[in-house]
């Protein structure tokens, strides 16, 4: 039974697209058939992060409007053969997303894949609502700061009230993914503590992704961090989050750089 997972946050710039790509690639690496669907019509980015921008012919809107069929629009990843991408249109806007059209595409994708990962645009308007509408599960991407937490809370409220599952009286499985987490700043008290975020949002924690230049580097070369730098701390955190999504019990830790003892001693002397 395919699972439709929406990656959403409310606020922009917290790492939804990075997370969609990294989680999707991590799931696909385990052998699951995964499709990433970019719902950010008009501001598409997922194709860039996936390094597929030069292979886009048809997009989600073409499929919705019947200009192309799904097989024509899906882009197969060259590195992991169980991973595909359904890009968004850059030239249209989010009004082109119709509830019936989105429902049809999602239904077709459910038949072909194990995981349908919907990368939501920022905001709470049509694009975000369409992305979450058919979801069975949601990953709420949150940075440890107050505005991101409040926006996530708003999105959780919408997941519980406006989605198809909510309307039929069921609950969406919601998971919190803390991203751009900086252990040093957290130790200084410059960021909200994980416990405080969890207490405010009161949903289970899927993982903590440390802030890392590896993420930016990976995006710039067009590869999810879980493919480009699989041993980096964020990639390991994403891989663990993917295992938790698959139902494994993995304790949540914050992966750090693997440093030698001398590195550590040296750093201590300097500071």
């Amino acid at each position, binding site marked *: 039974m395919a699972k439709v997972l929406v990656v959403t946050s409310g606020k922009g710039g917290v790492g939804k697209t990075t997370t969609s790509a990294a989680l999707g690639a991590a799931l696909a690496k385990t052998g699951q058939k995964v499709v990433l669907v970019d719902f950010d019509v008009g501001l598409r980015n997922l194709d860039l992060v996936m390094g597929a921008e030069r292979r886009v012919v048809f997009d989600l809107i073409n499929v919705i409007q019947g200009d192309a069929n799904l097989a024509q629009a899906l882009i197969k990843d060259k590195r992991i053969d169980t991973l595909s991408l359904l890009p968004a249109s850059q030239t249209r806007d989010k009004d082109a997303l119709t509830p019936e059209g989105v429902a049809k595409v999602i239904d077709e994708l459910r038949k072909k894949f194990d995981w349908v990962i919907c990368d939501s645009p920022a905001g*709470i308007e049509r694009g975000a609502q369409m992305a979450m509408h058919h979801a069975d599960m949601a990953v709420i991407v949150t940075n440890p700061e*107050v505005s991101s937490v409040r926006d996530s809370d*708003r999105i959780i*409220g919408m997941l*519980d*009230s406006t989605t198809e599952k909510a309307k039929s009286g069921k609950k969406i499985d919601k998971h919190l993914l803390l991203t751009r987490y900086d252990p040093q700043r957290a130790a200084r008290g410059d960021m909200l503590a994980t416990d405080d975020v969890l*207490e*405010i949002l*009161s949903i289970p924690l899927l993982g903590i992704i440390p802030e890392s230049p590896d993420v930016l580097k990976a995006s710039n070369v067009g590869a999810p961090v879980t493919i480009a730098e699989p041993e980096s701390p964020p990639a390991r955190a994403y891989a663990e989050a993917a295992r938790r999504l698959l139902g494994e019990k993995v304790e949540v830790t914050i992966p750090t750089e693997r440093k030698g003892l001398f590195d550590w001693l040296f750093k201590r002397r300097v500071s």
Partner: protein
Amino acid sequence: MSGTHPPLPRIRMSGRSFLALTLTPEAPLEDWLVALDHQITRSVGFFAGKPIILDLSMMQADTPNLAFLLPALKERGIRVIGIENGDRSWPAVAEWEWPESPVGGRSSGPITAPEEKPEGPPEPTTLLVEDPVRSGQHIVWPDGDIIILGAVASGAEVSAGGSIHVYGALRGRAIAGIGGHSNARIYTRNLAAELVAIDGFYATAEEMDPACTEKPAQVLLSGEALIFRPLP
């Protein structure tokens, strides 16, 4: 001595008519009494204090349980002021106290007892919210109190006609006593509200008593001032 008697007072008389109800029991009497009980529960107080005439025209001398009919009616508080169409010589009714029947009277046709709902306890008017109230949500309950088991997030709003009880942290807005109930209060396990208001008097986070914030507290209205008090 020819004393002069004071004139005797005039006897004042005026007419008054009551509508007496005529009950006509039918055999079998057990079923009829069950039906009567149903009628009594549906129309509470309908028979209370009303004069009743018992019409035995459908009874026979040998109708089973006839002897228990009059006591059964008395037990139900039905006041029989007259008995018609029976025969005092029936052995079953020999023990009965036959009231003196008023004479005459006109039949005014069949009467249907009005249906009344028995007055149960009033409906509870408290709204229970089991999920956390999320940012952007607005809960309005003008009919009474709201009990929220989780937290009220920053950017959420809860309005109640009565009091507001928040068992989690109150980080959003709580507006109690809408519609002019100055006795309403706001209670929370953690007062971190953006705004609290009772009956139109409000306080923003800056105006709240710092001694009470971030801990269990209640808010009440005294005159025109909001009072913040810690909860034990």
